């Protein structure tokens, strides 16, 4: 039983040790998969037609569904965020599902989830300032000026809770699966893990990806004042 992130090798770049960990390798594998997938989709859709048919229909349906999701969570004015969040959605979903193939999911490393949460945090502040200007600044001093430190702490707590939610769920599922494989008696190793994989690696993975995107978009929309 070993839940820690294995360090595969260390590269020395100008006196600084760069650790190439299991997370980085698995992230590259997920990225490679997504890039190959994107290239295949692009070559299949060589000629776009105005009247979609067959494969193009499926792709347009997926993109339209995600656009509607962004519209309902963040509002009409923030539709351009759909591109970024579709990428985040696909990356986190593929990472979470890679646990099914026996990889250590990259999202079971806090650095990966915290990176996405930091980007969400930056988007919240930038979009809040862009769409509400003075109202955004004033929002920190509400209801009274003395509440300013509390509001700042509340803002800083957002990326932490957002990243820990995804990280804790995936890590908890991974630890439980490892424990089951290590401790279950021989005759239980054929049926029980399948049912648990279906919950921890499939349902929880899809649900947590969805929740990460919904919460990010809702926070951004609420700060920018564009969702109703």
């Amino acid at each position, binding site marked *: 039983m070993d839940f820690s992130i294995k360090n595969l090798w260390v590269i020395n770049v100008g006196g600084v040790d760069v650790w190439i960990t299991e997370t980085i390798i698995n992230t590259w594998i997920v990225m490679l998969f997504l890039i190959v997938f994107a290239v295949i989709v692009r070559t299949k859709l060589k000629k776009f037609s105005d009247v979609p048919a067959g494969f193009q229909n499926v792709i347009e349906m997926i993109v339209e569904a995600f656009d509607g999701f962004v519209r309902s969570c963040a509002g009409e004015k923030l539709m351009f965020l759909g591109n970024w969040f579709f990428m985040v959605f696909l990356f986190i979903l593929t990472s979470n599902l890679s646990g099914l193939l026996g990889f250590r999911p990259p999202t079971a490393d806090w650095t990966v989830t915290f990176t996405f949460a930091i980007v969400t945090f930056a988007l919240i502040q930038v979009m809040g300032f862009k769409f509400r200007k003075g109202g955004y600044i004033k929002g920190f001093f509400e209801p009274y000026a003395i509440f300013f430190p509390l509001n700042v702490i509340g803002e800083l707590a957002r990326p932490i809770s957002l990243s*820990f*939610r995804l990280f804790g769920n995936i890590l908890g599922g991974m630890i439980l699966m490892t424990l089951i494989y290590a401790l279950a008696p021989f005759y239980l190793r054929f049926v029980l893990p399948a049912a648990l994989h279906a919950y921890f690696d499939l349902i929880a993975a899809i649900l947590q990806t969805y929740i990460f995107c919904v919460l990010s978009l809702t926070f951004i929309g609420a700060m920018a004042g564009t969702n109703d």
Partner: protein
Amino acid sequence: MQEIPFAIIIAAAQIGAAIALLNGLITAIGQGNIVAKSVESIARQPEARGSIMNTMFIGMAMAETSGIYGLLVAIILLFANPLIALYMQHFIK
């Protein structure tokens, strides 16, 4: 001589991890309340099912946060215990 305090640290960390995981009880009660109320409101107004389900998922994710923090405290106590390093640093020369 060094083994006895070390064993006490390990035992206390494991008991602490078990206590930290007990907050799952209260988290589960809270999430159960959220689902119960959502089912009630869907039964009363079936046409608002979509938005109620959306709000329910967001609320459940919020309520889950405290449970996740407990899990993280337990994991830190079990696998990355800072107290052992402190003990090593101060008492084993």
